[in-house]
């Protein structure tokens, strides 16, 4: 019975992760904005107990903030590469992120990388799809120049299709990116 319920827990948890992977990541409310936060007031909140201490469960620690593992891919573990408006060149200050991606692939030889190009909502949809493609291939070329072999890399363009619709300057800057999505070993 205990085994069944822990398995059920896992299914529920992983399907929640899968769902989170499909939709936009919900913004986490600040503690004072939640009902609990309001009830507690501004005082200190007790640190959570370490669930890993429980010996006879298969509970896993939660992934770091912003990391989404849907079973096949991991998003948010490697940092996204950002671009200037209407540009597809990898900027000097973004190169370390691709170097880190190369190191990750070396440490995890079974895994591959999906380079997913994005644009902000400005401009036009079809051109942005091309621009996103171009950004992904610029990141791909840079990784190739670091010695990453081609069959470790996959690319995709989402153009401006997932861009924040009413984004301000800061939100738009975050939309101009190549997301480095880890494809897990089969």
């Amino acid at each position: 019975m205990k085994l069944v319920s822990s398995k059920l827990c896992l299914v529920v948890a992983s399907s929640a992760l899968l769902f989170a992977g499909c939709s936009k990541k919900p913004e986490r409310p600040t503690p004072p904005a939640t009902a609990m936060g309001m009830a507690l007031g501004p005082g200190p909140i007790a640190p959570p107990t370490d669930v890993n201490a429980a010996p006879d469960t298969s509970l896993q620690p939660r992934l770091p903030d912003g990391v989404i593992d849907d079973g096949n891919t991991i998003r948010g573990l490697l940092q996204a590469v950002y671009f200037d408006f209407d540009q597809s060149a990898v900027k000097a200050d973004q190169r370390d992120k691709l170097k880190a991606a190369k190191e990750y692939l070396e440490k995890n030889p079974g895994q591959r990388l999906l380079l997913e190009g994005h644009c902000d909502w400005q401009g036009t949809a079809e051109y942005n799809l091309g621009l996103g493609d171009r950004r992904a291939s610029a990141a791909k070329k840079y990784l190739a120049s670091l010695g990453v072999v081609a069959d470790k890399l996959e690319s995709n363009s989402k153009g401006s299709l997932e861009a924040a619709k009413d984004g301000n300057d800061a939100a738009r800057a975050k939309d101009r990116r190549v997301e480095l999505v880890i494809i897990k070993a089969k």
Partner: protein
Amino acid sequence: MPNLSRLLLLVALVSAPAFAQRNIGEVTINVDKNTIPIRVSAATPELQDLALKAFGAHGRYKLVAVNFAYDIRFSPAGATQVRVDITKGLMAAPVGSETVTGTSLRNALLRAADVAVEKTNQLGLRGFFTAKLAFISDRTGKTEVYVADLFFGEIKQITRDRALMLSPRWAPDGSRLLCTSFYKSGFPDIFSIDPATAQHTTFVSFRGTNSGARFSPNGQQVAMVLSGEGTPEIYVSNAQGRQVTRKTRSDAVKSSPCFSPDGARLVFAMEAGPQLYTMAAAGGSPQRLTTGFSYNAEPDWSRGNPNRIACTVRVGRQYQIARYDFAKGSAEVVSKADFDGIEPSWLADGRHLVYTARDRSTSVLCVLDTETGQSRRISPASFGSALQASVWTP
């Protein structure tokens, strides 16, 4: 105290309109010199409403109650038939009467109104009210393809794929749509969709980005953008997505190819800028169109007036519709709006087009008169977002 709260309520009510959202999609231009004053009426409120909406979107006309040049009257003549009677001037000299059959009463009214336009516009313009639209909406929370008539009647949701979807384009005979969708593979592929049955077939699915598919005017070829060989390049296939041949070769992103009305040339947008280029549909060296704008995209070559290409240009921080004219060798902004105007698609007369009016929060479809800049919103607020319209003229 009750008086005070009543006063506050009154203040709130009076000041409420100040906070109301501006009317996106609507631009009214005062032009008396080049407009024809007409009186439009119909025997039923539904037909009257539709007739006023149609003529109200036509920049050649001004709707008036008195001092009209033409009097245009519609009446139902059967389940799918409408009679139109047109007279000229205050003396009511007969211009024409006709009974028109449509696919529905609504469609018959639009056809009869096109007859009236052709008999009264004095410029030789074709009617365009019977155009059918295919477009994208995310009103369900996901981007799906819809079709409707030009005034947002007879709306049908075609896809229920729950996938990212963009730019549906009609085949010239209206039998199918080509669109780019992330359906099935999770990557942008081109699908062919039968609007009657909603049946999907994969048109092309190569590695990389497959997008921007458009039919040639005779329906026998399709131009598209594929990035499978590195850079997004222009390719042309047959109507089944076979015999795919590459037409461009350079290290610059290309997008949105569109055939000329005779099918001999292509216009497309290309980096840097992007700028617009034309090229023989069989391939060759691209020639730049000098528009005077730094960003030019989404060209649509008019079938009604082969001298005109509409496109989206950047003006300051905004995007507007521009019209390139081969006779003048230059382009001018034709949507004089305080919101973005993008995604132009010509209507049959070569003067009006459908475009998307966009601001930070919403997208709506509108009819623009490129002569005057008058814009009339056609997608109602209650529908939700509507964008990327493709026009088919039956």
